[in-house]
């Protein structure tokens, strides 16, 4: 038990990321506010980023002379992507607000078949 608490290993990270993922998805499912949904998306992305780094570190760390940093790279990509995505999403919300006077996503059902 103490081992489990003292030595941080892969499952710890996976648990954290799972929690983040779950929180994100439930946020996305429950929030009607667009900003809230965006926050949920960010949480999901971060969960994925943590997984990348963790799997890289514990699974394929590489040798000392040539450490493998693929997971880290992906994490950075995700961060950048998240920033871009957030800016695009915010721009959409702004327009959305201009058109509907609110940012309630339930109002956006123009694409309904």
């Amino acid at each position, binding site marked *: 038990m103490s081992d489990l608490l003292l030595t941080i290993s892969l499952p710890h990270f996976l648990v954290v990321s799972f929690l983040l993922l779950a929180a994100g*998805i439930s946020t*996305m*499912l*429950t*929030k*009607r506010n667009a900003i809230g*949904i965006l926050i*949920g998306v960010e949480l999901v992305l971060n969960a994925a980023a943590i997984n990348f780094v963790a799997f890289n570190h514990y699974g394929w760390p590489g040798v000392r002379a040539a450490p493998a940093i693929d997971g880290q790279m992906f994490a950075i990509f995700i961060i950048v992507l998240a920033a871009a995505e957030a800016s695009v999403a915010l721009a959409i919300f702004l327009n959305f607000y201009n058109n509907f006077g609110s940012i309630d*996503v*339930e109002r*956006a*059902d*123009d*694409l*309904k*078949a």
Partner: protein
Amino acid sequence: MTPVQAHILDLLAAATLIPLASALLLLFAGKRWLGRLSGWVATLAMAGSCGCALAALSAWQDNLPATIVFEIPWIPVPGQAAGYLNLGMLVDHLTVAMTAMVTLIATLVHLYSIGYMQGDKRFERFFAYLSLFTFAMLGIVVSASLTQLFVFWELVGLTSYLLIGFWFERPGPRLACKKAFVMNRIGDAGFLAGLAILYCKLGGNLLLPAAGDAQTPSGVPIETIYQTLTAILADENASILSPPAWLTFAGIALFCGAIGKSAQFPLHTWLPDAMEGPTPVSSIVHSATMVAAGVYLTARLLPILTPGVHLFIATIGLVTLVIGACMALVMTDIKRVLAYSTLSQLGYMVLGLGAGAYNFALLHLVAHAFFKCCLFQCAGSVIHAAGGKQDLRSFGGLWRKMPATMACFAVCTLAIAGASVMGVGLSGHYSKDGLIACMHNYGLALDEAFNPGGTTFPFAHIFYWAPVAVAYVTAFYMARAFTLTFLGSPREPHLIEHAHEAPLTMLVPQGALALLAVVATPWGMAFWGDRINASAMIVPWVQGGTEEQVGETAVEFTHHAVGFAWLVGIAGGVALYAAGTKNAARLAKLPGVRLLHTWFLNKFYFDGLYDGFVVGLAKAVAGLAWILDRAVIDAAVDALAKRVREGAASISPFDPDPSGSPINSVAFAAQAADQALRPTHSGRIRLYVLLAFGSAALILMAVLILVFAARAAGHAA
């Protein structure tokens, strides 16, 4: 090379180019800047050109060799040693004389036109066309090679088209000009073929044969078509008297061009119709240009034409001579009488050329040019005075109103009839009688050639009896026209009341031409006399020449046969028509005469034949070709396209039939799925998120279950 030749070359070049310059000036600047002055500008230019030509004529010295400048490359002909078809100029006595005649008449016609075309709305353009027309004719006369001649030949055709169709608003002229051009083109197709044959056989240059030897301006001898031909025939062991077939064929083909231009049978029908043009046009077309071009060409080519071609030419001339005179007998339109008379007179010239009477034929060309031009101008004055009326039956008694015109007409009537007393006569006398004398020799020679035994062969004798008979007929129909127009009492007085003498611009040329008609031939004889030997030298097998050469017998025959033809004909004409057309109408009712009269009046049904049959045939062929195009070729293509489409449809899965096509059923399935899944497309983001993650979770679970199950199975095994 003597300075004289250079001088003459310069003068003739100037004489040729001045009308072109004036035509271009009038064409582009006439309307805007010159206006009514155009007429005088053109006339003065023509007079300048005439001055040059006359100066060249007076500078011409006997026994000058023919001079040829031929150094402007035009079209390359890589197949021949010559390398290029060149452009250039040929000067010999014929050129000099023709240039003088053409420019002289053209000047007078220009002058006449100023009065005649007064008030026409396209006054300037008329003079531009007229000058261009003259330029084209001069181009023919000075051309050094046959190919170059063809260029101007066609230009004459085009400008005559413009002039005859000058009043193109009216139906008559626009049909007539088309007819003239098409008829000419028919002849030109032959010309082109003949040209091609000569080109292939004689090399590219085709320098026209000149009298005697020709040389360049620097004195180097130059080989004309005649010398080339002689050399080639010598190589082939042939001579012009026993020629190869191609030479005869080429000669006939080339003469086809002359048939078209000089309105010989069977392409003669355009000439009378060309009357639809303004009268000055008729007067120049019928005298110095156009119709003269064919005669000129034939005369030029005479040395290289084989005896077979000569016979062909003579026969064509003979037919034209007779039918022209017959039709002139019965026409009631004054201009048409003159037109058919032109046909007949051209027949004389062509007949004479065919018979080898080179000098007399050309003499007749010059003489005829002057008196026929004058006759047309008089006719124009009469029509002008009669307010556009052209019917002989409406005239009569005009001598009181138009004495000067009558005098001119009378002089020319005498000239064309060949009047003479005691061997001194008007121009027609010398040329026509000389021609007939030559024909006599030719007929006898033919008889000899076809009938070595000595029995008579009537066909050969027609060649001199027909011209003799036509000499009488000519005097008769001219007297008829003269009498009906000027003598007797007015048949339609109201017409005559307003008649008046023509203005001075029209009278002066008329008078001048009448004067020339009197003196032209004696003067021409004087000019010509010494050169006859030159032409006889290059045409060794033809008879003709001076009276001495023609021979005592022929001259005697001519004196007896036609010595008083003019008197008999004129007396007959005046007697029959002095009291109007009544007597003649009675005569025309006689059984035999009636048939002929109908034939003549209907112009031997040539027009009907051509319009109905030839044109109809062409139209039918055109229609057939068109139907073939649409109904056969195009229909086949369309049917093929349709068949391909049908075939493609029947074998392809892209069947237009909606049931049973596999591709379509895929589409239908997709459509059905779309209908089924449509509700999930709610537009609600949260639903999407749920679906996405839910299904991801489900898939993940399924995968895990499968993996564990497989593992469990593995352990079990």
